[in-house]
């Protein structure tokens, strides 16, 4: 099924949600990603990914408090679901397995 695989950016966003714990809302995620990856991250892209993650059931959201800077609009906080946790672990597992398969010699030669 299409929905079960995590794309690279999806994975990053999901990880950020997990890492930010209680501060995971769109702009915050965007800022954190920029800081971590050192590349510019577009809000529109993050939004569509968040939307997709929620549709896939990998993340859930609830509305928080309003602030002055947001023109009186409430923030939507995201948190990771158990399905999301499983997906993250699975993709980490795949990577670890692949890393373990590489003989050290072949990496050193490059």
């Amino acid at each position: 099924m299409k929905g079960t695989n995590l794309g690279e950016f999806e994975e990053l966003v999901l990880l950020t949600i997990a890492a930010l714990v209680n501060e995971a809302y769109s702009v915050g995620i965007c800022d954190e990603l920029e800081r971590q990856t050192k590349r510019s991250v577009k809000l529109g892209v993050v939004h569509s990914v968040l939307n997709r993650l929620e549709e896939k059931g990998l993340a859930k959201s609830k509305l928080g408090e309003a602030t002055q800077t947001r023109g009186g609009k409430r923030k939507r906080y995201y948190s990771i679901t158990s399905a999301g946790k499983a997906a993250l672990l699975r993709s980490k597992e795949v990577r670890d397995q692949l890393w373990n398969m590489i003989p050290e010699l072949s990496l050193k030669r490059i």
Partner: protein
Amino acid sequence: MKEHNEIRPPQWAARLLSWYCKPELLEDLQGDLNEYFQRNIKSKGTRKAKFIYVIDVLKFFRLYTIRKPEFINLLINWIMIGSYIKTSGRSLVRNKLFSIINIFGLALSMSVGLILIGMMSDIYSYDKFHVNHDRIYRVLSHHVYLNQENDNWFATTSLKAGKAIQESFTGFEAATLIRRGFEGDVKHSETTVRLGGFFVDNNFLKVFTFPLVEGNSTTALQEPFTAVITESAALKLFADKKALGKTIILNNDKAYTITGVLKDIPKFSHIHFDMLGSLSTREVTEKENKNELAWDNMWNSWTYLLMPEKANLTNFKEKLDQLSAKEDSTVKHTHIELKLQPIDDIMGGEGLSNQIGMTMGKYVILSFLGLTFVVILSACFNYTNLSIARALRRSKEVGIRKVIGALKGNVLSQFVAEAVIVSLLSLTMAVVIFILIKPHFLILNPDLQELLTLNLSPMLIAYFILFAIIIGTAAGIFPALYFSKINAVQVLKGNPSIQSLGKLTSRKTLVVFQYCISLMLITSTLIMYKQYHHFLDFDLGYNTKDILNINLQGNNPDGLMKELSELPEVKFISQSNMVPSTGSYWGVNMNNPNNPQDSAGVAMNRIDENYLQLHQHQLLAGRTFNFKPKDVDETEVIVNEQVLKRFEISDRIPDKAIGQEVKIDGKRLSIIGVIKDFQYSRANNKSRNEVVLRYIEAKPDFLNVKFSTKDFQALNEKIKSIWKQYDSIHPYQGKLYEDQLKEGFRGLDASMKVAGFIAFLAIVIASLGMLGMVVFTTETRMKEVSIRKVLGASEGKLLYLLSKGFFTLLAIAALIAMPVTYLFFDRIMLPMLANHAPIAVNEMSLGVLAVLAIALIVIGVQTIKIARSNPATVLKAE
């Protein structure tokens, strides 16, 4: 903190966001954008922040953010459609006059639109039968001599360039070269037919999709002296249809073997031919001809390329430029630039010289598009105007609908739907008009008939319906907006919506606009008409009356001349090589006798001893030619005054110039006569004024027959039957000189007729609109008029009162239209036309008077009716 709050993001963008966004996502998005906005104000400044905000709003317009239309609304709209149709139908029937004006006006303008759509769809269908039509390109050439910049591109390229591309280029799939000249009389045993075609190389059938019925398409055109022929040409030549392997003889010269039979060429192909000869033939026949492969011999051949799926066109252009840079050194003072043109652009694209066949050209389409647009706009204005004028009556209905619960959007869609219904009704009428005027449109110009069919196809009908829906929406949107804003409470309280009067200025503007357009079109037509007749009656400097020019088509003239001169109607016969003033040219190089360094191209015609007398050319000095047998060397020439002027021969005095020796085309000839200047080019062309006349060579091309008869048709039939005895292959080509002159102005004639027709439509539409307006205003002022009458106003006064407003509008329209038309023609159009007639008062005023007269009748009839009405009955009615 407060300061920042005062700077707010652009409100329209914020509103746009909340309009399209799903409610559940909206708050989040708004918040995010606001947060970014505040941040950007600090870091990038207010203006940039606003800009970014707008861009972000547009960027968020994605599939997952868009609000889905609600099902229940759709359902309600669906149910209401029945009600809309019912009320629309009732209102159409109730206001019969207005409905007729609207439907008829729209139908008239739409019929022109249908022609335009048919034309566009025909042009778009060109060359689509080639499987790879989107990948085929043609190489164009641009010729610059002595750095004289010009923007004239040619569809032709040199064979040299084509071969260089084939041999040394990469990045294309196949290239084919086409050269003109494979045409003429084709003979097989006893049958001879005239066929046209090209020399092409073996890749031709690979690049283009012209399927072979018989033969092998990969090898058919490889060997020298092979040819392929179309099915219908084969049927003419070989009655039994079996053409493969047979031999044909072209122009009694070379023999070619038929190696393939092609399916007939589709109508919508920009290349047309009856047969194709192998280009390798020319490698044999033109072996000694150095010019054949010269870089600057770019007038006779075309190059077409089949590019790969993802072609790198910029890279290819660079390579073409490198080729030009390399080859320019092989010719003197000449730079030739090459570029690619997709074949899909050929039919409706730029006007290029040396096209391989006829093309429509962008300008024709654009000007027709412009005219159509204006007429349709005018008809839409009628609809808008009359609908708003009738607002009083409809507004009650709208008020009730709103009270019952209709939203703005419902009312809007109701009135747009009503307009669409009207325009669909108009469409049926327009299609009938379209079918009626189609044949007349096509015969306007023989080229149109060749290029277009305007056949109704299901696709075309679908376009028509789409077009009608668009027109309906365009016409209905303003009244719909107006009605949807109506305040239900006010209307139902019986407060007559004063708003309709507020719209008066905009309605007046529309009327002025309509009349401006009508006046401009009619005046332009009249100016063109005047120019057309000016050129037809142009004093060419010789007489063309009652002269029949017969194209000899390679036949020996002697026998024919003898028989023709025995006809009683024929007065006189002369021979010539071309027919001047019809747009064909013969040139020759002449040296200046006073200055050996100086030479120039002059125009030339070859004539016999009777020519000058027959055409009544005026001899200023000397004599005309004497009869010269064919084997005697040429020693004499006749020149016109301009030649003396150009080369300063004998101080420009004709008498002195007689006996002067000049060098023409390398031959020493002495001047035996000087004739008065005459128009050698078409009447609208000022170039090629210097003309030399020489004695005809072995075979003249034309016989000029001066006749005197009342029944030209009978004479023409007689000559035709004589022709048939001499030449059974070529059809007789005899034309009246005056008809040939007319043919030269066919383009002007056609555009005059089109403009005239559209002007007529514009006037009809404007008059219909005027009629509607007059009827409406006079009816609403009925009571006022009656009271005035009771108080003692005279009929004349009332007439003046009622019609004053309309005449002011007409006067304003005339004041705008006339100077604009005058300046347009005087400054822009006519300067492009040499020898034109000046614009006179009568063609400027005639159109205005005609349009005013029609308006006067329309206004007059209505106002008189009202002014004469019996005030008692009107006032009693309430």
